[in-house]
């Protein structure tokens, strides 16, 4: 049984999807998603333990050995992603029950859960697979399901948001497919390890360069790297709150993982960062993302849009770490993937609770919410401080790791941009705090008791972010191991 773990990991949510759609019961669908998420979390924990003790785990799907068949590879570089994605999914499952009931028509809720299961399966699949084409397939499973999920938003604008994401996302997916196709044309294999081996002797090949560019640009669309970010704010803000939590915390992060995987283990750091100027371009885009994302966030009038623009800036931090192509840089990027996922999930979840209780996440409608909901306010403040990067939150740990990694390479301009971006984060978080604390509460708000499940989910994430800020040994050892594994393979 334990040999099948890598497959079970993906299979559980994949099986959950049709069951959810068939059962047509809200509670049953919710339970199925919860079980699928908890099951994958269990698998992820077991796999992480096995990798820690026994090293890399390889699993041939259907018994067809690589390079002919599809191979799942579990190593230090993907266990953090598995843990993160399945943990966030489990929290979202707890959170979603009441949130979806309030935001989505009852008959559609089972379909939402079916799509959530598919998104989860797609993300876990991207993380475990060792096959380039299979990665594309899972990427599309995740993307198609998320287009559908965004369209379920309660406002008509959600349809437009989903359509825009669909168009842009599909272009990105096609780019990835073209890139993988070119790599296949050059090497004749789709297995990642095999690709890496055969590409070693092919430096100077134009088709290979084109393959690298297509794959990286395609994944950059999915990552929402500036200037390919335009789909993100609408998509995250218009989706139902629970969906927004899951997507904001994990969808871009999985794309980042895929990019790291392709850049370091398939194409190799020497090709991508040595021969091609990806590092310099990445640093430039990271600077622009950090500055513009944070600056635009300062002018948003809706909490969810503000958080979404903040995500664009935070992705800039991650890209800055990756573009260094050093162990410290990749480790800092990985660490920020974990820390930002937890922090941003907490904030989107809090926004979801505010939507439930105040009917809107517009800053004008949030006036004085700090006095009426001191606990939700406290959660927003603590998680918001994580975006600024103030101790004792997780954001501080990533900022420290990234700052030292940048200093190590003497990247002063990028460091300066990161610090300016942090200060802009102070401005936009400060706006939320001032609206919540100083404005007179409007009288029309309907108050009801907050659902325990949602409050518990929010505070679990907030406390987790504080824990990661105070004792960063767990996430940082995971990130260090992941970075070391990635760079070792890229040799």
């Amino acid at each position, binding site marked *: 049984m334990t040999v099948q773990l890598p497959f079970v990991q993906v299979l559980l949510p994949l099986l959950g999807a049709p069951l959810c759609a068939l059962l047509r019961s809200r509670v049953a669908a919710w339970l199925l998603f919860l079980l699928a998420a908890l099951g994958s979390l269990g698998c992820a924990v077991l796999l992480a333990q096995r990798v820690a003790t026994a090293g890399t785990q390889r699993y041939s799907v259907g018994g067809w050995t690589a390079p002919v068949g599809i191979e799942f590879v579990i190593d230090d570089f993907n266990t953090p992603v598995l843990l993160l994605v399945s943990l966030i999914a489990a929290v979202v499952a707890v959170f979603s029950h009441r949130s979806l009931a309030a935001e989505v028509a009852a008959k559609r809720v089972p379909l939402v859960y079916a799509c959530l299961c598919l998104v989860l399966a797609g993300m876990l699949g991207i993380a475990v697979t060792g096959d380039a084409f299979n990665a594309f397939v899972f990427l599309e499973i995740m993307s198609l399901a998320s287009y559908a999920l965004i369209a379920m938003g309660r406002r008509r604008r959600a349809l437009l948001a989903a359509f825009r994401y669909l168009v842009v996302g599909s272009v990105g997916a096609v780019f990835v497919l073209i890139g993988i196709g070119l790599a296949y044309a050059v090497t004749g294999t789709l297995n990642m390890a095999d690709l890496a081996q055969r590409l070693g002797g092919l430096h100077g090949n134009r088709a290979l360069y084109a393959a690298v560019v297509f794959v990286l640009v395609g994944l950059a669309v999915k990552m929402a790297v500036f200037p390919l970010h335009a789909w993100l704010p609408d998509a995250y803000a218009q989706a139902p709150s629970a969906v927004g939590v899951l997507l904001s915390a994990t969808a871009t992060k999985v794309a980042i993982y895929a990019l790291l995987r392709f850049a370091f283990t398939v194409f190799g750091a020497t090709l991508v960062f040595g021969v091609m100027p990806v590092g310099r371009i990445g640093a430039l885009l990271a600077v622009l993302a950090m500055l513009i994302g944070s600056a635009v966030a300062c002018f948003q009038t809706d909490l969810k849009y503000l958080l979404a623009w903040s995500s664009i800036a935070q992705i800039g931090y991650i890209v800055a770490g990756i573009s260094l192509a050093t162990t410290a840089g990749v480790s800092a990027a990985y660490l920020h993937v974990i820390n930002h996922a937890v922090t941003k999930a907490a904030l989107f979840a809090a926004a979801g609770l505010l939507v439930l209780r105040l009917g809107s996440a517009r800053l004008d409608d949030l006036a004085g919410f700090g006095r009426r909901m001191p606990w939700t306010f406290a959660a927003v403040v603590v998680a918001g*401080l994580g975006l*600024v*990067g*103030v*101790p*004792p939150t997780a954001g*501080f*740990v990533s*900022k*420290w*790791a990234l*700052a*030292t990694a940048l*200093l*190590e390479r003497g990247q002063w301009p990028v*460091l300066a941009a990161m*610090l*300016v971006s*942090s*200060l802009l984060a*102070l*401005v936009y978080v*400060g706006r939320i705090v*001032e609206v919540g*604390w*100083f404005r007179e509460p409007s009288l029309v708000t309907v108050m009801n008791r907050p659902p325990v499940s949602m409050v518990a989910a929010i505070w679990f994430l907030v406390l987790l972010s504080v824990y990661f800020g*105070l*004792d*960063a*040994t767990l996430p*940082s*050892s995971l990130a*260090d191991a992941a970075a070391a594994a990635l760079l070792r393979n890229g040799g």
Partner: protein
Amino acid sequence: MSGLLATWTSPDQATALPVIVALPLLAGGAVLLLRRHPNLREAASLVGGIALAVAVLGLWPAAGRDLRFELWSWLPGLSFEFALEPLGLLFATLAAVLWPVTTVFSIGYLRGNRETDQTRFYFFVALTIAAAMWIALSANLITLFVGYEIMTLATWPLVVHKGDPDAERGGRTYLVLLLATSVGLLLPAIAWTWLLAGSTDFRPGGLLTGHAGTTVLVVLFTLYLFGIGKAALMPVHRWLPAAMVAPTPVSALLHAVAVVKAGVFTVLKVAVYVFGLDTLDVSGAARPMMWVAAVTLLTAGVIAVRSDNLKRRLAYSTVSQLAYIVLAATLARDVAIAGGALHMVAHAIAKITLFMCAGAIYVTARKTRVGELDGLGRTMPWTFGAFLVASVSIIGLPPVGGMWSKWLLLMGAAEADQLVMMLVLLVGSMLALAYLMPIPVRAFFRPPPVAPLHGEASPALVGPPVLTAIGCAALFLVAEAVITPLSGIPELSGIVELP
């Protein structure tokens, strides 16, 4: 419990250190639990304060020993760790002893003013004191930085306590300036130090000694001194006058003692343990910042003279007096550092007295401007008597404690051959004379415009400042004992005795 006491001051894991940080937190928790019973709530705050003062004073006999306590490791190679060293002991004692005194005053002030949200007030004061203890006992820069930021965040709700648009504006300046300097300058400085030296520990003789060239040292020192926004060097001093929107007990305890002293304490620590006095002296890395401190000292003094609002005048006086301590650090002489450390104590006691007097005047007479104080000394003799003693201490005249710190600072400047700085120190004292003395003089010698309808402030309001004024006078006699532990720092072993 017995295990806790058995290792109380044992050298490797001295449990006294984390207990001292935890005590105010416990008091804060008790405040929250007792929110429905105001009398018990204030009692919890007071008991916590007295317990903390006793615990910290109890560490004085162990001052010469190397007490450490490692909390946990934060990242590989970096851990949260406490250590007792003389400067930290001074700062911890200061905050711990003055907390219960201010609590008594706060009770009188908040009740006299019928302030709302008193539970929140006492809770965040306790949290700030915990942060002060954390900072004082930090064994490395990372630990210190965490406490420093928590202190900024914990004081914000106190600054905006009133919740009106003025408070919002003041709070915004406060938070943005303090966080912008710490995240934007101090954090990169610490990260850079870590990369250069491979550690962030405070090391006698200087962590950076031998790890950096002169240019790097100059840049780093500048980053540190502007990054430590709490030390209020111009032009990052603006948060301090902005923080005056807070209730007066907050200005007294936090913006005369805990927060600003955390700033100058960090400056002294960085100068002594990160750069090392010899390195600073030989490289001249502190030279540019010396001028910044001198300009701040004089400019703030001039602004204070020209301010009519009493709290604003006291705030700029604080900016000016803090610059004395920063100047001491930049002189990089053992005598100057001792003077700076003593000034940290002397100024804290004197300035808290002045703020408490200002609060007593506000609650009793509803007066906030210097021009309105004519003749008040006759109806409030104790308040203005305390004000006078503290003013003399800040100016630096005998027979009060402030004289010794100015004396040591002058000696330090003379030893460093900085004649201009000697002049700056003297002019600064003249300015202090000009901005402080008119207040008691007006109160005692000018006739009141109308017959006052009130008498002396209530005992809870006038008792604490009288007590701290006596402290100012007592410091004149015990100043030498206060700085004696400093000779435990190797570079300060030769500090001269006071005459």
